[in-house]
């Protein structure tokens, strides 16, 4: 029975569109995290001077520290963005596809 449903789903253009849309979104966010993190890592290797610059003339806090904390915070925010979009956009489409196929 479920194979029958799976077959129906495979032929549903909504499904193909969902997969494409969701995969693009997931890989895009993954790429952002990687670029951000490996950018930070490569700056440590190549341009340490930039990272050690203080954030203000009278401050001891280096720019790199803010960037490191920034990577952590942005990672948390991006997970939130994904969960929000999945709940709001993707889940209803998935439910619709399964419902149509189960008819």
């Amino acid at each position, binding site marked *: 029975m*479920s*194979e029958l*449903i*799976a077959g129906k*789903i*495979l032929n549903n253009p909504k*499904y193909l569109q*969902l*997969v494409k849309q*969701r995969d693009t979104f*997931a*890989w895009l*966010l*993954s790429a952002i*995290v*990687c670029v*951000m*993190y*490996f950018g*930070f*890592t*490569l700056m*440590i*290797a*190549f341009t*340490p*001077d930039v*990272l*050690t610059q*203080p954030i203000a003339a009278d*401050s*001891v*806090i*280096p720019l*790199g*520290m803010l960037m*490191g*904390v920034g*990577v*952590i*915070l942005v*990672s*948390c925010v*991006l*997970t*939130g963005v*994904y*969960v929000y979009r*999945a*709940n709001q956009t993707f*889940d209803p489409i*998935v439910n619709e*596809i*399964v419902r149509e*196929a189960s008819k």
Partner: protein
Amino acid sequence: MKKFHTVFFAILVSALFLATDLASAADAVTTAVAPAAAVAPTVTPAPAAVVAPAVAAAPAEVPVNWHAVVMFLIFVAVTLVITYWAATRTKTATDFYAAGRGITGLQNGMAIAGDYMSAASFLGIAALVYMNGFYGLIFSVGWLVGWPIILFLIAERLRNLGKYTYADVVSFRLKQGPIRIMAAISSLIVVIWYLIGQAVGAGQLLHTLVPQMSYQLSIVIVGVLIITYVTFGGMKATTWVQIIKAGLLLGGATLMAIGVMAHENFSFAKLFSDAVAIHPSHMDIMKSVVKIGAKSNPIESISLGLTLMLGTAGLPHILMRFFTVTDSKAARKSVLYGTCFIGFFYILTFIIGFGAIVLVANNPEYVANISKSILDLKGGGNMPAVYLSHAIGGDLFLGFIAAVAFATILAVVSGLTLAGASALSHDIYASVIMKGKASEKQEVWVSKMSVIGLGILAIILGIAFEKQNVAYIVALTFSIAACTNFPILILSVFWRGLTTRGAVLGGYTGILGSIGLLIIGPTVWTKVLSMGPAIFPYDFPTFVVLPAVLVVAYIASVTDSSESAKKERAAYDAQMVRAETGLGAEVGATH
């Protein structure tokens, strides 16, 4: 059932007896502490799996920290009650491995944080910051960025496709036998080495915190407790131990950070300038990033980054947590909660590290020999956070933080043991040996025996490795997870072309490549074996092994023209429908 009650209470009583016995014996025993291996704890990054060995600097006579002992006992009592409760509700295999799939997103998020935040990441990162400043942040960042990747690419698909282990997912459309053997081998290597790291860390930590308790006894207590939790309470008990521990750890770290900030008038500027003024390296603690920048090259940085990030996404005990939730939506939510808890925690450890520079360094009460160095602490390299708790809240808070560190070890070790046992019972016994014909009862029984076996193995290895330099353990476990579990899992889910041959050859390339290059690399070849300059000059082999795994898996798959390979490719559509929609996924408990 009657027999079960008797056995459970026997263990409960003996565990409590062991602990109280310790406390009462403590008064009598005030002998000098045997020196632990003196390894510079800050040169190697304090890893998630290892607490850097303590440096011998034991005072001749140490009073018993009764606050710590009492809080240990309360924690042990509470967790044993929970284990009892969980045991009465653990009847099926799904209960045992996956807590009946009734864990909510928030609960699982806490448990994920409890499973992942080890004593080493608490004490170790704080110690790293205390000694080197800014440098410690680089590891926190690396250990966090794996989580978004888990969410975007793995969590939901894993929940939709799997049952109890990640090998369920990889073998979904591939051949059961060879895939599960490969996956179980890599899981067990990761789990056993991670366990050794945790056991050694536990022994050293407890022995340092409560010196009357010997290293060996500390490990035996940890071993007995986790065997009790996991064999009786399965995933339910493990999950709740992890949730409670996460709450304690986050609460303790938050209080500590608030204490630091209150001392610094809630000004980060003041905190950092005070730290710069006190630390002997002064402004260099804000530039310590330059040290590694100059020392290491881009390849080393990238390889370390890949290992920390993708290794996190391939740890078997972490992946297993996604089978405990009700559905893929809860799996997704749990990563969001988990990531926020872990990120928050890493930022706290950073404040704690700098706070320790201000409040602990240069304080004769904590420093071993103040005329020699104002940084080197009594009891070793992992102590900054512990002494900071004393500086902020006296013996009571120190006792609390010590008990939290103990709880932390128990939670992480429980998760690991269960993951290892499930690889043995679900993948090897039920799927390979019995070819799926084992009854649920038999499978759970084998699983419980595996837990006992792994627990005893951890005790023996933990004691055997006491004086060993275990700094390579993180590199080993994270490399295998990053080079084997992660790529094979991703390929099986996202690439139609993957065949059994590709997955198996790729998987073994990852396992053997990681181990081989680590052995001839600087950490093992030079530092552990003392064989001179390393043949392979990098600490983390991921940048070589990961591409090799992908290439081998690709070539072995595309050249596979067998009938079974065709079927495996054809089965991808059905797998994808289930992965993307959750149709046919294991049903969660409804409340």
